[in-house]
């Protein structure tokens, strides 16, 4: 703590800080940061008009200093906080005041639900263009609502372990690119007319619910029926295979029924006419 304070005190206090990059490429065992040190670094950066923040550390912190979420100068925020014992236990504030923020990337956060019973954490970001959320959970709600008028690119990564989210609502009139990686189990609801032109789906962590995932994926494709470009992984096609087989059987049954009706009809005609 003393060494951090010394480094910060040696810096010219009148000069703005453009970028804070707190990142350790070592494994999680070696990138632990004391919560008080993290708080002091964040406070220092925000008080010196920081514009870009990237923090990727292990830290037993429950909540980052709120000043980080009320910075008037911040344009890019990338937070990936791991906990030594639990996963994703850092609370994301329910109210944000980041008027300049265009890019937000979050990994390992809890989103809180609002009065309407769903979590809607990004609606106050007036300039947000790019959003990435990974390994998140929602507290006291089963619906995550991405409601934002300026959002263009949205990337989401969530796995079976984090399946407490049952429904994902997209109320994003400017969204053109949606990328999903993980277990496709949340029911998707998109406000129409849908602006999304490119969809990316990389199904991973498929264990036993492949038929359910297959049905959910079909509902997604129906929601995005007017997309121009679709990118899928070969594993996503594996998940869709039961659905393809099911429709193929249905088509075969329908064809058999049609032939049967034709035969009965021709028999009927030959007997009575």
């Amino acid at each position: 703590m003393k060494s951090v304070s010394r480094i910060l005190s040696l810096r010219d206090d009148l000069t703005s800080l453009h970028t804070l990059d707190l990142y350790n490429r070592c494994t999680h065992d070696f990138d632990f940061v004391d919560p008080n040190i993290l708080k002091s670094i964040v406070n220092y950066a925000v008080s010196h008009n920081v514009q870009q923040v990237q923090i990727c550390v292990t830290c037993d912190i429950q909540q980052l200093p709120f000043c980080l979420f009320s910075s008037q100068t911040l344009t890019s925020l990338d937070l990936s906080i791991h906990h030594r014992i639990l996963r994703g236990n850092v609370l994301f504030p329910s109210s944000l005041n980041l008027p300049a923020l265009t890019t937000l990337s979050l990994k390992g956060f809890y989103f809180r639900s609002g009065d309407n019973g769903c979590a809607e954490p990004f609606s106050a970001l007036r300039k947000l263009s790019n959003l990435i959320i990974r390994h998140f959970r929602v507290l006291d709600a089963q619906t995550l609502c991405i409601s934002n008028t300026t959002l263009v690119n949205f990337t989401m990564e969530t796995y079976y372990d984090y399946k407490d989210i049952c429904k994902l609502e997209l109320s994003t009139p400017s969204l053109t690119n949606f990328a999903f990686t993980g277990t496709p189990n949340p029911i998707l609801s998109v406000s129409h007319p849908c602006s999304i032109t490119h969809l990316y789906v990389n199904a991973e962590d498929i264990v036993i619910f492949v038929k359910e995932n297959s049905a959910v994926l079909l509902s997604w494709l129906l929601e995005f029926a007017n997309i121009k470009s679709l990118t899928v992984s070969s594993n996503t096609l594996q998940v869709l295979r039961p659905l393809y087989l099911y429709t193929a059987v249905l088509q075969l049954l329908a064809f058999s029924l049609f032939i049967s009706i034709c035969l009965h009809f021709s028999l009927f005609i030959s007997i009575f006419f």
Partner: protein
Amino acid sequence: MESLQVEMKPLTPGLYMILSRRKFKKTGAGIRLKKDKFIPDGVVEFLLQNSPLAKINIIDNDD
């Protein structure tokens, strides 16, 4: 739809388990499925049934 890209990825452990079990049930023998990347038959055509003119691009980063 104007284009469909397929990213070739190795089977995930879960899918590998499911497909191995399915193969075992089908053949009755303990044939082990190779841990490989492959596109299941018919699914691409199923996705493009309403877009017959769509361009198909297979992306394999190992190539």
